[in-house]
């Protein structure tokens, strides 16, 4: 086989793999984009260096978030000062909290327990310590 043929085959295989990866990723993301209609809204506000959560009924929690198991929640995330990132590593939830913008992301609660909420965008002195507790109750 000549130089060119071999290389074209190789490039073709690489492109085929990448196309497959891209299509899979796109279909996966499309599912995540559509927020279910019955989702309950939680307002998440980041500020240096703590998280505030506001439930639909108006109750406010600071530093911890209590959710019910088996429900769908939509987080509306924003920030009061600098850019933070709202992150629940155990549930692969990540969205930036940008001042002046409201970003949203949703999740289902499946297993009761206590999980970590943390900030994943560098936001200054105590960025490393900007954590909160997610409590999923029966």
């Amino acid at each position: 086989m000549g130089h060119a043929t071999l290389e074209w085959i190789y490039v073709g295989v690489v492109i085929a793999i990448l196309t497959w990866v891209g299509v899979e990723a796109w279909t996966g993301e499309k599912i995540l984009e559509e927020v279910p209609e019955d989702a309950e809204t939680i307002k998440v506000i980041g500020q240096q260096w703590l998280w505030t959560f506001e439930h639909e009924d108006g109750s406010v929690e600071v530093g911890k978030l209590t959710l019910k198991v088996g429900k769908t929640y939509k987080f509306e995330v924003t920030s009061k000062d600098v850019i933070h990132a709202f992150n629940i590593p155990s549930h692969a939830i990540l969205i930036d909290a940008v001042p002046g913008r409201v970003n949203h992301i949703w999740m289902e609660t499946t297993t009761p327990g206590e999980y970590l909420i943390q900030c994943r965008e560098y936001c200054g002195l105590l960025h490393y310590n900007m954590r909160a507790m997610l409590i999923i109750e029966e």
Partner: protein
Amino acid sequence: MVLEVKKPRPLWEILFSTHHTDVALLYLITSIVFILMGGALAMTIRTELLTPGPTIMDDPALFNRVFTVHATTMLFLWILPFISAIGNYLIPILVRYKDMAYPRVNAVAYWMIPPGAALIWLGWFDGGWYAYPPYSIISSPGPSAEMWIFGLKILGISSILGAINFIVTILKCKHPDLPLMKTSLFVWSILVTSFMTLVAIPPFAAALIMLYTDRLGLSGFFDPNAGGDPIAYQHLFWFTFHPEVYIFLLPAVGMAYEIIPKFSRKPIFSYGSGVIAFGILMIIGFMSWAHHMLATGLSFAEKTVFMIGTLAAAPSSSMHIFNWIATMWGGRLKLAAPLKFTIGGIMLFFSAGAGGVVNTTLPLDFITHDTYWVVGHFHLMLMGTISMIFFGFTYYIFPFVTGRMYNEKIANVTFALIFTGTIIVFTMHHILGLLGMPRRIYDYIADPDLILGNQIASIGAYLVGIGVAILVAHLAIAAARGKEANMEDPFGIGEQYYDYRVKEPHH
């Protein structure tokens, strides 16, 4: 020999020279000084993270300053000056011209680096090397952020002057009998990156000025309280710094194209595909900047476009890897230090590229983004690939510069240390990222997995640190006292290296 410092000369004669080999020597020494300084900061970071809680630093602000200056130093004061050094040494020779096109501009471009570096190191900024507003607007009252801004502006102007000089040298001063398609692929890599520099740098230069006036309170471009948009800064920033990744990478690719055919004693498998891959990357490098911003709340359409733009960069990178392997295939390999470092770099290039595909595939990005996974990913590229090939090229060019030979056994030791250390530290970083450890943190939760992972990573980092320290110390000693190199064929390959012509080292 052209690159050689012929006889001992007073220091001021080198400092004030405009000859390309002298400027190159200054660039080379500067870059090596700064990899040691930036490396010391890296060791500090890894030592602080050995245990949860304060290990050697009591003040998180100091830690934040250390990682900011570490990143700025490694990118702008190690990688870019090293590229300019090798470009200055080789480009005039490879295009058969007596010097760079504008020797004085060349010296000016070099002499902008020390003041820029001084501003960055004395400013000791804490906003992260990306300086995202609004944090960078409100952080560090006093001159620290301003010093960082002006330091980067000076280094940016230096890059642009260097890029113009390389473009004119290659396109206008090339020997008339030498067609562009017969020049070395290293020439192509410098030509392509110089064009990319000219297009990429200005948006960030503008963003820096806007950030500066925002800090002064004169404007509110990026301040939401004044009607600005912090995400606009991120677009400007990454429009510059995603292409900048290729500006760092492509010269290393070009250097691999210099080393591999010579040490495999075979011609390049396909010169044409190398040129095509450079050309494709030059354009596609500008189509993927927002993959750094997938979590900022981009629309689904934007995320799709930038995922496709990122995936599109992979085939041309893999064409280079194919080309290198096919060149080495069936060759009589001379496994000297330059080739070892290059092969190590290629292996890690593949790993870094595969990790990059994971980063951009949309749902997975939200697992890896801003965690230690990303730290591991880009260090595999910057340290594992680019710096590995740079170290190999340092060994390669060493006899031509000094007229002396390094010790192959010590070179093997440095390779073993740096290569294994790099694999340990940056593989562990990937795993820590999957465990959910965010980037840029002074302290982490006292979880046994995180502690173990961080300690393994720190051990790997120390191996790299020791390897680089031995490498620099050995080359410094060998430059003064090493045994004389056989200047016709220092590596015993039995091949002509460059078309040298007798040239005086001064204007």
